[in-house]
């Protein structure tokens, strides 16, 4: 019975972490995410030159914070790796899926983002589609286990944001993944 303690540990780490920070992204502040959201009242058309939108952090912004380091340590529990050209979830990741689904079911206000990634082989937009397929596979598994539909959004980065640089299988297997990220 080694499964239960594992889940317990992971769940507690996730709870403690509060707002887990995804390890591989640069802080939003540097990315200049000054994009008015769909709900903001930015003006359309007309005032082209003056139509500079107010910068504001978007939901899901990764502002760092106290929980970041703890979450980094927990990163291993939030990443699901895949075989080449496959979106099938390997049995060893059942625990991660179950824990994440329970966490979502227990807190209906919680929102997560599933970020799908591929290795660098093949064309870029096709890899975006493959990464989306992986993220959708995880999403379906979460919904089957009790997560609510609006709680889980997907985004695919294809091969654009590798976890590891490199052109060998060691890098490729680290890059074929779905990361579970709290979306606030």
């Amino acid at each position, binding site marked *: 019975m080694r499964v239960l303690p594992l889940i317990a540990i992971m769940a507690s780490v996730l709870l403690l972490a509060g707002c887990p920070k995804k390890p591989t992204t640069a802080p939003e502040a540097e990315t200049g995410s000054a994009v008015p959201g769909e709900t903001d009242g930015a003006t359309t058309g007309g005032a082209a030159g003056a139509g500079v939108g107010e910068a504001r952090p978007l939901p899901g912004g*990764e502002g760092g914070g106290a929980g970041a380091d703890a979450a980094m340590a927990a990163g291993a529990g939030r990443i699901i790796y895949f075989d080449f050209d496959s979106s099938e979830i390997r049995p060893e990741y059942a625990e991660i899926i179950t824990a994440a689904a329970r966490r979502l079911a227990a807190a209906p206000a919680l929102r997560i983002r599933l970020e799908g990634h591929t290795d660098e082989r093949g*064309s870029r937009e096709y890899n*975006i589609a493959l990464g989306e397929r992986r993220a959708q596979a995880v999403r379906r598994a979460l919904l089957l286990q009790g997560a609510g539909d609006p709680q889980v959004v997907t985004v695919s980065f294809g091969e654009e944001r590798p976890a590891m640089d490199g052109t060998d299988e060691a890098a490729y297997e680290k890059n074929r993944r779905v990361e579970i990220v709290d979306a606030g």
Partner: protein
Amino acid sequence: MKILRFFGCAGTLSCLLAAAPADAQLTVQITQGVADPIQVAVVPFGWAEMGAAPWDVAATIGSDLQRSGRFAPLSRTDMLEFPHAAPEIDAANWRLLKVDYVVVGKLVALADGRFELQYELVNTLTGQRLLGQAIPAGRESLKLASHRASDTIFEKILGMRGAFATRIAYVAVDGSPQARRFRLMVADSDGANPRVVMQSGQPIMSPAWSPDGASLAYVSFEGGLSSVFVQQLASGQRARVSARSGINGAPAFSPDGRRLALTLSRRDGNVDIYLLTLATQQLARLTESPAIDTEPAWSSDGSQVYFTSDRGGSPQVYRVGAGGGSPQRVTFEGGYNARPRLASDGKILAVVTLDRGAYRIASLDLERRASRVLTAGRQDESPSFAPNGATLIYATRDGRHGVLATVSVDGRVQQRLAGGDGDIREPAWSPYLQ
């Protein structure tokens, strides 16, 4: 809900075509030219005013012709005379130097502060004057005017318009996986004058030119989710045209510029091709398949959309009428054919193909059904045709770095465009610029 919004440059996000040049200029190396290049002499242009001429027109034309791989321009130090007009050319003297064609001309200052680039092309074997043109240009446009002259000279001799007076867009990436910098760039077709169009700490992908060459569509992940933007190059003004749930990717302008083909997955996660009418934001679904459908490319008459799909088990290129209908499979050889692009005459399709374990660029003659692998890299991708259809630019690897390379459709001429320290990828060749 309005998705179409205009906004300029805010915060640390920069959209600045007119701003400081980027550090790394691409430099062109010809890695393979034709075995029997045409001998041409481009004589230094005349300039009657005080001081140095504002632009060395002959140097630009000479390097354009050389860069094409099809010409061998005579060095200035080997020239015995420096005529500036066709009647001054002694054809026999140039024949002795094995020169087949001579380009002469002068740069003339006009009263309004502008200039006129006057040039002539003479065939030394027949003594015939093949071309005589005058191109007016402001000081900043003298290089472009020189490229235009190159385009016309190229066409007069080879029967096909040159593509020198064009630009390329590409994505430059540097930094570690933890701190990447993505920059959308535009440079002249010879790699000169690189400018940053947009930069972000999140991925930028899939630049696509509007048919008038004035705007770029691209995918940006700023904010952590994908969106498609259309940005005007001159003003930097941009509109977010798609920010739907799931994938917003692979934008491609219709030949009339009114519609954007793009890839969406929306909430159901089904990756399909859609057509978005830009003025009205009206969205029409073009494909509907549980398989992946992506990477749309328009035929030049706008009647067909080619795309990649794995509906048959492996990624292959299909085609569907722009008004809908049932898609037809186009590629059959090999287990991986993706990212189609069509030459402007509609006869040649370029794809990324899996060739003996390596991803390479192949051309497919749609009429003769003959395919040919054009490149020899391990990870070649993102082919894009020059507007004359004679040359493809694509992304390849040089050691650890992503670089750009070109190959002529007949495979005879190859070039490499080397950049700085980071990766250069996803080249998109502009249409002819007005």
